[in-house]
């Protein structure tokens, strides 16, 4: 997967400029950067959801979208209507829809794949629950299960571990690690620098353009952090750093609907 001198944005607002990155198969990559840095846009470029203004994007050996069935994208939790009348099982089954195509109904094998994916995230006892009744961590688990059920070669996850309990975070990271070991590529945006440094293999720090790209350990370098986070960062003597970057989703595309925990039941 590679991006060559890519720029992109919404309307006349630039989100990313001159981004050049190549990601090897089987990578476990965290994309970090402050709010508005273009993390979500980068993920959407890879998913073929945003057209680059200029530059070239190549995903799984072709232009974005050509190998779409081998890609699983999980949006930020704010973009999901949690009051929607679907159960946990329904949501995970959607991961199987692209391979089914029109007309065909999900069969026994699809149902087995759904239960298996839910078992992996420890949610198989919630098959019939409407998604709005789940906790934040459970919701993330269900969406990861949907990605797993699609059996993709590329996982694109927008803030998969933001605002969830440590147990769920560990569980999700273990699963993603296992997928990377099976030579599937995992790219996740995150605000959680500790998770990025400890649980991912590589880190891509962006702030409108690539600031740093390398092994996850580089996040322990104060210079890299300072470049990525600028004024949001306070570096203390002795090497400790304080980061003022509370999560709020960035790069909302025009026309995107956001759902902020409205009363679903």
């Amino acid at each position, binding site marked *: 997967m590679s991006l060559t001198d890519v720029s992109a944005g919404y*309307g006349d607002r630039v989100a990313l400029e001159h981004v050049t990155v190549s990601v090897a198969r089987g990578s476990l990559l965290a994309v970090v950067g402050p709010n508005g840095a273009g993390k979500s846009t980068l993920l*959407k470029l890879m*998913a*073929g*959801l945003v057209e680059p203004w200029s530059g070239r994007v190549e995903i799984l050996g072709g232009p974005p*979208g050509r190998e*779409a*069935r081998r*890609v*699983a*994208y*999980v*949006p930020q939790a704010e*973009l*999901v*209507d949690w009051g*929607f*009348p*679907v*159960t946990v099982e*329904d*949501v995970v089954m*959607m*991961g199987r*829809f*692209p391979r*089914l195509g*029109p*007309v065909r109904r999900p069969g026994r094998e699809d149902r087995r794949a759904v239960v298996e994916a839910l078992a992996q995230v420890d949610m198989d006892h919630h098959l019939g629950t*409407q998604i709005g009744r789940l906790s934040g961590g459970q919701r993330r688990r269900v969406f990861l299960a*949907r990605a797993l059920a*699609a059996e*993709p070669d590329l996982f*694109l996850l927008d803030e998969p571990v933001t605002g969830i309990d440590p147990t769920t975070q560990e569980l999700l990271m273990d699963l993603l690690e296992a997928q990377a070991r099976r030579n599937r590529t995992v790219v996740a945006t995150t605000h959680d620098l500790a998770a990025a440094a400890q649980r991912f293999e590589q880190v891509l720090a962006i702030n409108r353009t690539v600031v740093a790209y390398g092994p996850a350990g580089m996040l322990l370098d104060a210079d890299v952090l300072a470049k990525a986070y600028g004024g949001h960062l306070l570096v203390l003597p002795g090497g400790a750093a304080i980061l003022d970057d509370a999560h709020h989703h960035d790069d909302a595309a025009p*026309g995107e*609907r956001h759902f902020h925990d409205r009363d679903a*039941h």
Partner: protein
Amino acid sequence: MDLILEPLGSPIIVRALLASAMVGIVCAVVGTYVVLRGIAFIGDAIAHAGFPGVVVAFMLGWPLYVGAAIAAVGTALSIGVVTRRAGIRQDTAIGVLFAGTFAFGVFLFSTIQGYVADLFSFLFGNVLAIGPQDLVALLVLGGGVVLTVAILWKELLYATFDPLGAAASGIPVERLEYLFLTLVALTIVVSLQAVGIILVVAMLVTPAATAQLLAVRFTRLMLIAAMVGVSSAVVGLYLSYWFDVASGATIVLVQTILFAVALVAGPRGLLGRRATRAAAATGAAEAAR
């Protein structure tokens, strides 16, 4: 019993019953997606935009359905384009488009001299005026819409629930969007003669909204919506026959009453919610002990 069987002796009533039942089903099936997408306003806009098409067809001596279909589908597709590409807010664009096209219809309408009862039946609906040919056209068109949804329900559901995830995995979300708007337009055309331009949005929205209060699963929601749509169409038609009142309005009133009942008494309605909260509070109190 006679009250129910006696009207069936008249072919006009039988046609009206078949037509309203079909309209009830088609509207509920398409309306389920309309409600979940939150685009009721678009449905209303497309319906109003059909009016100039009807008037032009009347002036040219074409079948009125054809005029309505061209105008409604054209508007639906331009709404799709505006939504995706224009720099102004979607509801603003639709508001402008919808009032403008309807005004154009009224303008043309006011230039026609003489007998225009046909056109009035498109504004307010007159299901009793549906002739044998109208009925065939309606059944074919409505059947086509339902069949299309039957083929693509999974893709439409995924694209409605999570357009980004669906598009990334290869579902043609943009093309589905245009197809869906076309289905909404055709549904409205099918319903025009039964309920009329002004009330058709209720047929689209109310049964699905009622079902949303009663179901937490998509397939069941659509099923309940279809049952509400058909039963209110049949009951409304009988009521309008017995009391000699406007059929379209009566059907919509029956739907509205069903919605109100579900809102107050349903499990997710006002009373149900209170019961759930009370149960939850009791449960929490017991757990605390």
